[in-house]
């Protein structure tokens, strides 16, 4: 280099500053193409992703989540969405299905959201005796279509298992078991209102907060049922057979520190002993635009359902805590 009058930084014009190679990015390339053809991906993101198909897909996924109420989801839930070629970290790739990818959603950092139902149920009971159970089952049922919710039924099941174990011990009466049954509000034992009855009742509710709560839970139920999750075939089920059940994404308690919450805390200690199954697994073919469109539509419905649940928890009395991001 010729000597100059001062310091010179050599310039590497037209020389790429970074090279990134993925051994087999065929499926990523195909998916990136399908996403762009479907206008799910935005061409401008190609440059942002440094012209890398895998990064382009990641940016598109983030954009899709944001467009489907991502901020509301992050308010109460800490979840991660990835596209992978196997349904779980432990599962081996099915070589017979070379064009298969999976859209996977699971809790990130094993963090679970929480909702307290007790005060809401008491408020609803003052309107109609069957309204609390209806509200609870609509809420949990809608969210359970997409994410696992840990509620009093899981706690009762665990208490029953503990009772069976204790019964085999010589000093069975010495064991103190959580009184899950005693913590369940009596209104939860009532039958659930059917659709027509509920619609008729909503019209007669005068209290604006209660009306808002009931309308929001009906909307949540309708939103969640817009599409169904695909059934996993036997091969995928086989690959997941050694996994633990999915990690709960929401803990539904009646009061803070109640036996349902205590039961969850105890059970949570063993939930990660074996790799848990992801909450959402949507298998799809990246080379088939119809399959990609179906998958992203399904994922959009899941996002909007979770966001609607997050907003509904905001409306429920005494749920000012458990907020993950404002």
């Amino acid at each position, binding site marked *: 280099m010729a000597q100059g009058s001062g310091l010179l930084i050599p310039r590497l014009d037209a020389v790429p500053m970074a090279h990134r190679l*993925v051994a087999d990015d065929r499926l990523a390339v195909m998916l990136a193409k399908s996403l762009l053809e479907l206008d799910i991906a935005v061409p401008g993101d190609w440059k942002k992703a440094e012209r890398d198909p895998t990064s382009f897909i990641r940016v598109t996924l983030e954009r899709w989540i944001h467009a489907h109420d991502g901020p509301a989801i992050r308010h109460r839930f800490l979840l991660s969405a990835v596209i992978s070629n196997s349904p779980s970290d432990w599962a081996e790739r099915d070589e017979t299905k070379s064009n298969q990818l999976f859209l996977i959603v699971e809790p990130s950092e094993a963090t679970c959201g929480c909702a307290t139902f007790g005060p809401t149920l008491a408020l609803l009971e003052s309107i109609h005796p069957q309204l609390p159970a209806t509200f609870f089952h609509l809420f949990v049922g809608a969210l359970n279509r997409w994410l696992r919710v840990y509620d009093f039924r899981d706690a009762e099941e665990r208490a029953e298992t503990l009772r069976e174990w204790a019964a085999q011990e010589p000093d069975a009466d010495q064991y103190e078991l959580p009184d899950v049954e005693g913590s369940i509000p009596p209104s939860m034992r009532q039958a659930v209102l059917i659709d027509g009855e509920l619609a008729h009742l909503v019209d007669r509710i005068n209290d604006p907060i209660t009306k808002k709560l009931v309308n929001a839970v009906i909307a949540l139920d309708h939103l969640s049922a817009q599409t169904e999750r695909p059934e996993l075939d036997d091969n995928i089920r086989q690959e997941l057979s050694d996994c633990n059940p999915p990690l709960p994404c929401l803990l539904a308690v009646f009061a803070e520190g109640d036996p349902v919450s205590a039961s969850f805390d105890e059970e949570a200690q063993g939930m990660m002993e074996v790799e848990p199954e992801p909450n959402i697994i949507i298998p799809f073919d990246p080379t088939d635009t119809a399959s990609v469109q179906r998958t992203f539509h399904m994922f959009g419905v899941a996002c909007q359902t979770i966001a609607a649940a997050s907003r509904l928890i905001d409306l429920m009395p005494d749920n000012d805590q458990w907020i993950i991001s404002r």
Partner: protein
Amino acid sequence: MSRKPKSKEVTKRAVLAELERLRQGRHARYQTLVGRFARCPEFVSAAALCAAAVNASARTYNRTPLDAAPGWLPPVS
């Protein structure tokens, strides 16, 4: 009036064309030696086999012999 959508469409077409080149392995990034290596499963598995063989042979021929117990005759090769 139609300027913005048209420019967006051109970008989309350009990105799709680049992705198509990537799909066919004709993209500039695959024209390097490393690029051709990474795209070829036979190359990759041959290299993995060689690496495993080198590791295995290192384990086989790099043993540290244990000292014979006192009073024992040394091994005769």
